[in-house]
């Protein structure tokens, strides 16, 4: 079931020179235990069967690959959307939380903690905790609890406890800091359910494996519909889990892989979250990767219209793929993202998450790049219902 070949993780959890385990000694025993437990289930048919059943009967996989007739005409290519917005909970995040929660239960952990930015991972963690019978506590930046109040309510409905984080910039980065502090305190009975391909080894590997179901399905579906592989695959990149999930099964193919980071108000303004395009190597949250930082290594505040991309780091595998140039990384500014949000809603009746709208914005701005017959797949990582109130407010409608 898991991708066997391609760029796999090397010694000591490294992707090239990136990754690693930069954590306090107290957490090392938990990471080593997790590493061992994960390698035990990675190719275990029993575990795979159980996870597959949850993905199929509970999460609603496989998700469709939707041909966008109207947008294709408008943009001059053959545009498909991989519909992760239709996964139960409204985003690709459940692919990972079901996998990790099943593993945590098998390891005898009594409690799950998670961080969340937009709230999508928090919601997915709450769902997995509810269905698998594990209590969940979600750390969420105070600024994000306000931007995403509806998701806070959803998490609480499903029995999770949401803890607003008041330290630092009060966004995703600080939520991860607090979750790590909680984990150090409760390391003996708690599993830290990280929501992206970030953090110390084995998280970037494990989360990528759980998310690769997106790319495996896409491969099969596009071959059925087009009789060939796509010319390009486009996905937004914050921490980078939806992107690596759809890219990974295509790494060895002749397919353009394009990651789109949040340029916020513009790279030149400093108010953005484009770690790969504007950052430099550094260590945050347990891994060496690209990082937005000042000359002394202090992590810089970030901005994105999409709370889920508002993060100064990025998964270490993306750092490796950037350096090797196997994946291209570009950016989209808030303004173009809003335009893409409206475009897809109007053209296709599909409201994208603001995060996913970054990928749509890239294709719209670079429509010249693709020919009429080119098959382009956008990973529509989440639905935009959570963003509707915020966008309405920006338009002065609420």
């Amino acid at each position, binding site marked *: 079931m898991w991708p066997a070949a391609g760029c796999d993780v090397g010694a*000591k959890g490294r992707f090239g020179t990136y990754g*690693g*385990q*930069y*954590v*306090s*000694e*107290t*957490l*090392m*025993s*938990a990471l080593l235990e997790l590493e061992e437990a994960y390698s035990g289930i990675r190719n275990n048919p029993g575990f795979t069967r159980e996870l597959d059943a949850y993905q199929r009967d509970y999460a609603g996989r496989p998700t469709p690959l939707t041909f966008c007739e109207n947008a294709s005409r408008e943009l001059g290519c053959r545009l498909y959307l991989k519909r992760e917005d239709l996964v139960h909970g409204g985003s690709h995040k459940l692919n990972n939380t079901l996998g990790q929660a099943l593993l945590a239960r098998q390891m005898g952990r009594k409690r799950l903690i998670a961080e969340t930015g937009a709230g999508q991972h928090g919601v997915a963690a709450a769902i997995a905790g509810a269905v698998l019978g594990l209590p969940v506590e979600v750390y969420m930046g105070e600024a994000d609890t306000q931007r995403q109040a509806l998701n806070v309510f959803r998490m609480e409905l499903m029995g999770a406890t949401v803890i607003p984080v008041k*330290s*630092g910039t009060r966004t995703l*980065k*600080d939520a991860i*800091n607090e979750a*790590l*502090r909680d984990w*150090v*305190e*409760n*390391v*003996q009975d708690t599993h830290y359910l990280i929501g992206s391909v970030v953090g110390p080894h084995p998280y970037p590997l494990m989360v990528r494996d759980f998310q690769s179901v997106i790319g495996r399905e896409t491969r099969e579906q596009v071959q059925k519909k087009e009789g060939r592989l796509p010319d390009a695959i486009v996905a937004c990149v914050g921490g980078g889990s939806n992107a690596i999930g759809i890219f990974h099964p295509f790494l060895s193919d002749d397919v353009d892989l394009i990651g789109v980071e949040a340029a916020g108000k513009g790279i030149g303004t400093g108010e953005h979250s484009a770690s790969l395009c504007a950052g430099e*190597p*550094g*260590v*945050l*949250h*347990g891994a*060496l990767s690209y*990082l937005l*930082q000042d*000359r*002394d*290594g*202090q*992590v810089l505040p970030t901005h994105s219209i999409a709370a889920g991309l508002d993060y100064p780091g990025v998964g270490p595998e993306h750092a490796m793929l950037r350096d090797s140039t196997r994946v291209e990384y570009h950016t989209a500014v808030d303004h173009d993202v809003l335009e893409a949000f409206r475009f897809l809603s109007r053209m296709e009746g599909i409201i994208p998450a603001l995060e996913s709208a970054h990928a749509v914005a890239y294709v719209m701005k670079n429509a010249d790049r693709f020919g009429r017959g080119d098959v382009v797949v956008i990973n529509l990582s989440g639905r935009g219902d959570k963003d509707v109130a915020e966008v309405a407010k920006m338009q002065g409608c609420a």
Partner: protein
Amino acid sequence: MGRIAGVFKGRSSTALIGFTVAGDPDKDTCVRIARALIHAGTDILELGVPFSDPVADGPTIQRAGDRALAAGTTPDTVFAIVRDVRGHSDVPIVLLTYFNTVFRRGIEKFYRDACAAGVDGILIADMPVEESGEVLVAAKKNAIDQILLVARTTSDERLRTIAANAGGFLYLVSVLGVTGARSGVPQAAFDLVRRAKAVTDLPVALGFGISTPDQVASCAAHGADGVIVGSAIVDLVEQNLKDHAMMLHRLEGYIASLRAALQEPSGER
């Protein structure tokens, strides 16, 4: 023999290691704080290098780091503070930092600059022994003791590996959790002292959550060669930000009370 080894060599009482955040609340006041701590009987001075994302620290030290950063503290400021303190004292100075600060400056350059400023030891909060290869080389080259952490969750096998690579003293983390004063020192911390002593000749020091004279005395009674006090010192700094004379006075009084608790002969020993 290095300055750190010199502190532990042949002493009968437990060493007092005092921590403050470099640059908190500003450079000059920090130098005065450091000198007050030393004057009142601190055997080893530990300076925290402020970092934007201190995941191993509780709220007290997080706030101190924020104050230091707001005052414009950079690694250059930290080295300037070390030089200033070193100009007046031979007390060993240990830097406690997060790895990105070291990595960003360049590992070799960070250690070279630290050595030139008069630093004796460096401890990196988010660097387990597995990732320490390069820093161990830089430490050795620049005659700096690489201080490594041991936690209650550390297995005996890891403990041996850590001890084999550590310099100066072993820093035993007494709690599961982040820095910050707590009501008592758990028995598991004393068990860790015993486990560590069974596998190493390095001095062992207990830190995290230790603040009162009674607590340091009980660490001493359980065989700790050193005891590290941090958040309680930083608390006193924070409580007296408006009156620096009072701040220094209270810090000296506090250190003296710990010193006295360590000097008293202990019946349990």
